[in-house]
């Protein structure tokens, strides 16, 4: 009992978030649930990017390519070899992780700037690389993915709570939620322990880290591998939730979207990717739905905003966040909490008002 009373507020936040995400699909439509599935998938991919960029300091602008790889591995295994889709998810994740690990080896030789450049080029080229082996990937036609029916126990439990039948979308939501929780928990453990400390040491001073006995090359490639593992999982789930993938599912803007999510949520933080994913996913949807519903706007403005709105707002948000709040939403919330706490308790230590550049954990 005492343990519960003295638990730091972050545990309460985690519990609340879990309850929210568990209960949410029971009160919203199946379609909305599938949208939140994609937001969660984005959160997984952004967590991968966050481990790479936020914790190990290697900037990748081509993470959409890892998502594409994971999605196609799963879809091809399920479509051509008739495997159970849920079995293909871990295979795709491990495969993509392996490729990411190998990709990390040449990346070691590149300066951060060159790495950004090469990965950006990769992101631009990805769609045309997918189109080419048309026999394997279906070319521009893409691949259809069958969505699984919910099993009996899930169906019964869902019917017991809501009184309605569970759809595949809702089942996929819960699969995604389970994986997201596990992967976030793993990431949290990773960054609190030796590998996480090593990665941060490398990020903050490669030479100093090497001098202190950190295996720089090993941890950098490890970060790449883990990051790709997350990306592959996200891609595989993405194919499952949309039911269809084609080369145009993975444009450059997907990689930009991931970066926006990582930066907006807060680099080098655990809740950051979740908040960033919700922001990056719902911003274009919001602008697509809200703007056309404003009847007083002329039609021409409505249609252009629908097309250009997300790009403009992503761009403005990226620039403003990098200039004024490099720690993202989480950084702002945290400094707000520190200020509030100080007010409430009457403590006035000017030194603690400052946000540390990299808060260690949640």
């Amino acid at each position, binding site marked *: 009992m005492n343990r519960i009373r003295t638990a730091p507020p972050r545990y309460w936040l985690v519990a609340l978030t879990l309850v929210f995400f568990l209960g949410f699909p029971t009160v919203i439509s199946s379609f909305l649930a599938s949208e939140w599935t994609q937001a969660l998938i984005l959160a997984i991919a952004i967590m991968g990017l966050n481990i790479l*960029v936020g914790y190990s*300091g290697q*900037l990748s*602008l081509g993470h959409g390519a890892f998502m594409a790889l994971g999605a196609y591995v799963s879809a091809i295994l399920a479509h051509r070899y008739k495997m159970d889709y849920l079995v293909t998810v871990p295979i795709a994740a491990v495969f993509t992780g392996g490729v990411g690990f190998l990709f990390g080896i*040449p990346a070691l*030789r*590149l*300066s*951060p*700037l*060159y790495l*950004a*450049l*090469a990965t*950006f*080029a*990769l992101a*631009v*080229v990805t769609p*045309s*690389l997918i*189109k*080419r082996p048309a026999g394997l990937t279906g070319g521009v036609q893409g691949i259809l993915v069958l969505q699984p029916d919910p099993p009996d126990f899930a169906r019964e439990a869902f019917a017991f709570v809501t009184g309605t039948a569970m759809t595949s979308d809702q089942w996929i939501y819960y699969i995604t939620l389970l994986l997201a929780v596990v992967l976030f928990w793993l990431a949290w453990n990773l960054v609190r322990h030796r590998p996480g400390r090593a990665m941060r040491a490398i990020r903050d001073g490669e*030479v100093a880290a090497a001098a202190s006995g950190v295996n720089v090359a090993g941890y950098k490639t490890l970060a790449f591998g883990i990051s790709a593992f997350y990306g592959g999982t996200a891609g595989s789930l993405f194919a499952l939730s949309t039911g269809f993938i084609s080369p145009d599912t993975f444009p*450059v803007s997907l990689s*930009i979207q991931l*970066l926006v999510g990582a*930066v907006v949520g807060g680099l080098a933080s655990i809740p950051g990717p979740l908040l960033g994913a919700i922001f990056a996913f719902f911003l274009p949807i919001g602008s697509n739905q809200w703007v056309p519903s404003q009847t007083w706007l002329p039609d021409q403005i409505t249609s*252009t*905003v629908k*097309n*250009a*709105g*997300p*790009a*403009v*707002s*992503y*761009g*403005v*948000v*990226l*620039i403003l966040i*990098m*200039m004024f709040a*490099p720690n993202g939403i989480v950084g702002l919330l945290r400094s707000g909490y520190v200020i509030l706490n100080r007010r409430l308790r009457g403590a006035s230590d000017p030194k603690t008002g400052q946000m540390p550049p990299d808060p260690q954990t949640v």
Partner: protein
Amino acid sequence: MQEFLQLVVSGIATGGIFASLALALVLIYNAMGLVNFAQGEMAMLATFVAYSLVNRGMSFWIAFPVTLVLAFGGGIVIQRVVIKPAERAPVLTLVIITLGLATLVNGLAGFIWGYVPRSFPSPFSPDSVDLAGVFISYRDLGVIAVSGLVLLCVYLLLQHTTVGLTLRAAAHHPEASRLLGVQVSWMLALGWGLASAVGAVSGMMVAPILLLEPNMMQTIIIYAFAAAVLGGIESPLGAVVGGLIVGVTVNLAGSYIPGVGGDLQLAVGLGIIVAVLILRPNGLFGRAAVRRV
């Protein structure tokens, strides 16, 4: 053989376009140690400005210098408003800012002009000239001439004027230049303006070949990256040579390497980037980086 020569000449023409954009990247890299991911989008925006001017009835050869001046001013404004406040931030922060700038400019162009591809008038006649059996289009020759002229102007400006000397000094030794009375911050802005204008040339040259739309430069910027990296990212001469090599290589690869074709030419660009970065990270003309601990 004839086909080969024709491919080489048209490769040189596209190479000139890549070279201009690569030179713009190099100018900014030299000034601040930063790769400007928004360079292509800035060029695209300038091309749209030129398009609007020509559409209003202005002749191309008047619209061209007017656009260059506007692009120059635009580059300075962007440096003052977006880049300067974050000047002291880590390079990766700046890279993310330029990426945000690219997204922003892309969206703005879509906002103003829409996403329907438009044909951009070419100032050159569509005919070809027969040079000893090799047919070379006037358009390719024109592109080569304009790109060559611009590159020559930049060279003369950098190497043979006081402004060029101050620019280079501010880029290489900011502290010493400041002590000698150079306004380093404004020199950086000038560098951005210059890069923006040089990039705009590539946009206006490539627009008649591709169609003008907000995503037009997305592939060109990859080739420009390849050119800049191949030339050793800090060398203006390297950018030009790199641009020509990339242009010719991509053109020949598209026709002669089986399985590449038109759609995988971009992958050749990526291949060049990766190969250079792994095999010879300093490029053809770059100096080996010395890291200070």
